[in-house]
């Protein structure tokens, strides 16, 4: 009589793998786009004068002070209301990338500012052009200093990608939620999902802390 619910079976693995794949792909897109944009914005903020900085800062501040879930709903409703609705993947990638950018730009800005001005003056006095100074001195030194923070932000993006489910993107948690409502076996499914996130996040976060310790000495 219990035919409404069917237990978990091997035929569900396709659905779960799709969910895993979707989670990975949207995280990678957000991290790559967010890193590139964050690098540009972070560099501009480290370079620019106070007025530009405050302007940039307040825009980024909004992205960091409004919950991601509200941003996702607002953006996808907004483009829908404007008459050209986007696919959940596209809308989710855009919002998640901008959200990532807001955090990454802060990370990179502190990295660029950690390179002491005297080092740049030294590079210029050795005959390097401005771009050579940026490319050979500021980028490598500044980026190396913030690698652990970059890794931390990237890991939190992987975890935050779960929220894109709210606009209908079939990432891992949403597929598992659908499986739960069909199979009524929440514990098994959720523990599996948790293990997936854990085995991605745990080694990387330890590696980040290891690098941080090594650099501190």
């Amino acid at each position, binding site marked *: 009589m219990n035919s409404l619910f069917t237990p978990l079976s091997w035929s569900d693995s396709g659905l779960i793998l799709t969910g895993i794949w979707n989670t990975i792909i949207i995280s990678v897109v957000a991290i790559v786009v967010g890193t590139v944009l964050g690098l540009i914005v972070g560099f501009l903020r480290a370079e620019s004068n106070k007025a530009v900085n405050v302007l940039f800062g307040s825009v980024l501040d*909004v992205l960091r*002070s*409004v*919950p*991601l*879930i*509200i*941003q996702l*709903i*607002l953006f996808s*409703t*907004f483009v829908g*209301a*404007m*008459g050209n609705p986007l696919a959940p993947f596209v809308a989710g990638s855009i919002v998640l990338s901008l959200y990532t950018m807001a955090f990454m730009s802060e990370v990179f800005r502190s990295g660029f500012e950690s390179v002491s001005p005297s080092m740049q003056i030294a590079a210029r006095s050795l005959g390097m052009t401005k771009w050579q100074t940026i490319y050979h001195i500021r980028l490598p030194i500044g980026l190396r200093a913030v690698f652990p923070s970059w890794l931390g932000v990237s*890991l939190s993006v992987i*975890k*935050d990608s*779960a*929220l894109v*489910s*709210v606009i209908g993107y079939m990432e891992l*948690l949403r597929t*598992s*939620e659908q499986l*739960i409502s069909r199979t009524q*076996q*929440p*514990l098994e499914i*959720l*523990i599996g*999902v*948790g293990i997936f*996130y*854990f085995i991605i*996040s*745990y080694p990387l*976060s330890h590696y980040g802390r290891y690098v941080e310790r090594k650099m501190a000495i």
Partner: protein
Amino acid sequence: MDYEFHWNIVFQNMPELLNGAFVTLHVSVLAMFLGVVIAILLAIAKMNNSKPFCYVATVWVEVARNTPALFQIYMAYFGLGAFGIHLSPYVAVLSALVFINAGYLTETFRGGFQSIPATQYSASKSLGMTSIQAYRYIILPQMLRRIYHPMTNQFVWSILMSSLGILVGMSELSGTTQRLQSLSFRTLEFFIVAAVMYFVITKLVLFTSSLLARRLFKGEI
């Protein structure tokens, strides 16, 4: 642009939205308070060498730090059902936030405590202070100064993450917004107002915290 904004309906429902905002603050404050209490215990357990406690604390911290907040909330809301425990949305979100806050704050507290050299404790003992005095006047004030900002950030993070209550039907700010917009179909207006309210709450918290810091630490932070 052929979308017409209708703000009237939003303002008519303002009391309910404010009520939702109050629940958001309420759940975050409670989650922070319980999180701090548990985190202190976990930090002590991690720094002691008693194996079972240290083991529990480590597992707690690593699970909290390495899985998504939404996963924790689902675990509390759907997962515990397997044990016959059915939590209300409020309790489910609260327990997930407490779990995560405790996990993150444990590391904050441990780092803050270990950043104070042990020699300071010996020095205060040699000046004739009792253990309690040494902690009260020397160790804890310095520690508080170092963990103050991470704690503020964690609190702001709790406020923002309590918005996940929308997915389990909790009636905090996001959940209330979701319910009201489904009654009126003014999705954009309602969520714009909710976003503004979250922004204002976050800024108010940060502002209050910096005022408090100035009073507590007299500018040296």
